[in-house]
């Protein structure tokens, strides 16, 4: 019996020829990523367990990327950054994206892509549930808590239960205006919010091949919303090129074996998908946007690791160009690089950034911002019980601030179209 791609990566890192779903193995971790919310408690556990003067297992394999609570007056949030400054200095960790300096970047998962931190065939462990985003690079990438991360910090190792894999195959083509966000929202609502718990989701088919790397990131980013341990796309020419651009040659080209065991195979054709929204208060409440055009919205939000990447803003701008938003709209580029990109990319001679500004959109500084509520003074935070449409990934009660706010999740196209009309709108009429 063969192995899935996820099993192969795990076996390679467990130092064995073969693993099968359900087995518990110890793996060697290639990269450990942490940020400002979980980094400080992780370093505290590390010191408590390994000793005040202990050294991390490999300072070059640890990436500290603060992004959550950056532009806030909150003293405790600032203290977290100080703790990380001290810790990285004392430990000789060079990969520290220090806020307030030229090294500051923004959302960790997007930075991981931009800097090609996670490579095909590697294992990336992060103290954030959306670490699974890096499955787009054919990395086994999964989120853990602080104790597990502290354990990795000290030993470079982690126990893993080898997940079963669900194969999601999407053939054919998507309709115009339908994006990876719509695809994953439908998949989550079909599987249910725990339909993939303890499992891997492997994506394949022409629709996946046609997706850009950023679209694949959006897809893998939200597999956690179906409970999955990781999502994964295999290496193809596009991914080779993505690494090649930065002078990195990819030497991992494995795929799942023909006789690999999948616990489920779900087949879609691209034409089945339409522009989706996830209704409050669950990412699993997906419905076609067109069926909900009577829902009035107070606010629109474009940002986060899911919907704040360069291409996400380009999509929004395609709709916002020469138009005005009716609902108050906030845009937060995920990283400083995204911000630079959208200040350079032009549509009909106008930069994406200027299109946003001219449409009446308020722009914030690169970070997670209101995606997870955060301190009260966070840009775009929902401090009242508003109805919001957002390109982010979660709409549980209180996620963006107020417990009684209603958050609808959607693609950048749908969010932009809805912002213009002041109500939920299928973007197709603007495209």
């Amino acid at each position, binding site marked *: 019996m063969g192995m899935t791609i996820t099993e192969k990566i795990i076996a390679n890192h467990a130092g064995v020829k073969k693993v099968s779903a359900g087995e518990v193995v110890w793996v060697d971790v290639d990269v450990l990523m942490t940020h400002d919310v979980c980094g400080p408690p992780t370093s505290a556990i590390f010191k408590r367990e390994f000793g005040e003067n202990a050294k991390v297992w490999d300072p070059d394999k640890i990436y500290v990327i603060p992004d959550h609570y950056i532009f806030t007056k909150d003293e405790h949030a600032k203290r977290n950054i100080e703790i990380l400054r001290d810790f990285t200095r004392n430990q000789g960790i060079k990969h520290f994206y220090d806020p307030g300096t030229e090294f500051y970047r923004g959302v960790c998962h997007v930075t991981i892509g931009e800097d090609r931190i996670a490579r095909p065939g590697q294992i990336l462990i992060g103290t954030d549930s959306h670490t699974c985003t890096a499955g787009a690079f054919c990395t086994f990438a999964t989120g*853990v808590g602080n104790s597990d991360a502290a354990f990795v910090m000290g030993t470079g190792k982690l126990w893993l239960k080898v997940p079963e894999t669900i194969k999601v195959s999407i053939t054919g083509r998507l309709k115009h205006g339908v994006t990876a966000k719509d695809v994953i929202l439908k998949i989550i609502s079909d599987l249910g919010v725990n339909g993939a718990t303890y499992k891997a989701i492997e994506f394949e088919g022409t629709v996946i091949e046609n997706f850009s790397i950023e679209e694949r990131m959006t897809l893998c980013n939200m597999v956690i919303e179906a409970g999955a341990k990781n999502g994964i796309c295999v290496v193809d020419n596009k991914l080779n090129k993505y690494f090649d651009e930065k002078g990195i040659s990819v030497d991992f080209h494995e795929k799942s074996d023909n006789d690999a065991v999948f616990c489920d195979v779900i087949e879609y054709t691209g034409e089945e998908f339409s522009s989706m929204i996830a209704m409050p208060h669950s990412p699993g409440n997906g419905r076609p946007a067109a069926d909900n055009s009577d829902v009035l919205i107070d606010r629109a939000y474009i940002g986060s690791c899911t919907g704040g990447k360069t291409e996400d803003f380009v999509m929004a701008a395609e709709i916002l160009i020469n138009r005005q938003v009716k609902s108050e709209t906030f845009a937060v580029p995920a990283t400083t690089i995204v911000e630079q990109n959208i200040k350079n990319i032009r549509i009909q001679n106008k930069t994406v950034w200027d299109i946003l500004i001219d449409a009446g959109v308020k722009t914030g500084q690169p970070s997670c911002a209101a995606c*997870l509520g955060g301190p009260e003074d966070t840009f775009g935070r929902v401090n009242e019980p508003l109805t919001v449409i957002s390109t982010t990934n979660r709409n549980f009660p209180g996620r963006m601030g107020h417990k009684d706010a209603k958050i609808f999740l959607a693609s950048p196209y749908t969010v932009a179209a809805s912002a213009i009309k002041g109500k939920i709108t299928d973007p197709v009429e603007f495209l």
Partner: protein
Amino acid sequence: MGNIYKGRVFILGDNIDTDQIIPAKFLVYDLEDSEEKKEYGRNALSGLPEKEYGDKPFVEEGAYKSEYSVIIAGENFGCGSSREHAPAALRISGVKFIVATNFARIFYRNCIDGGFLVPVESKQDLTKEFKTGDFAVIDVDRSVIQNINTSEEFELFDMGKSREIVDAGGLFKYARKMEMI
């Protein structure tokens, strides 16, 4: 882990995510500081929607601990963010066991690896078999939970491999016991 545990039950529904367990704005407090740490106890489960849970607070106004030490919930308990502050907050508030039909993966790992509390899966949805305030007795060796108020007994799933880490008291203690670190 003691093999038989008795405690007062608090009932929760499906898909209780980490924002409901501990809202993001409280994550700035230091878990290693004995004073600040109390904030996690005080605010545990403060993100629950008032409409559904408003009548019985999990932690009384002004208190730092809850009178409930067993949570019984439905599906997908602990979904959402990877924050270990969530099981830590429940532990600080006094919770010892969570019995749910199933758990989100990262939360489950965090409960066990951090040595915070014991997550056990029930074979059926128990949220209607207990009421908030009932007393439960959990027998880990026999994998059963009993409602003392009704004397009914229900089956739990065996914890499998996780039990070794739970019994050791968390991942670090386990690794020391196995002479890995």
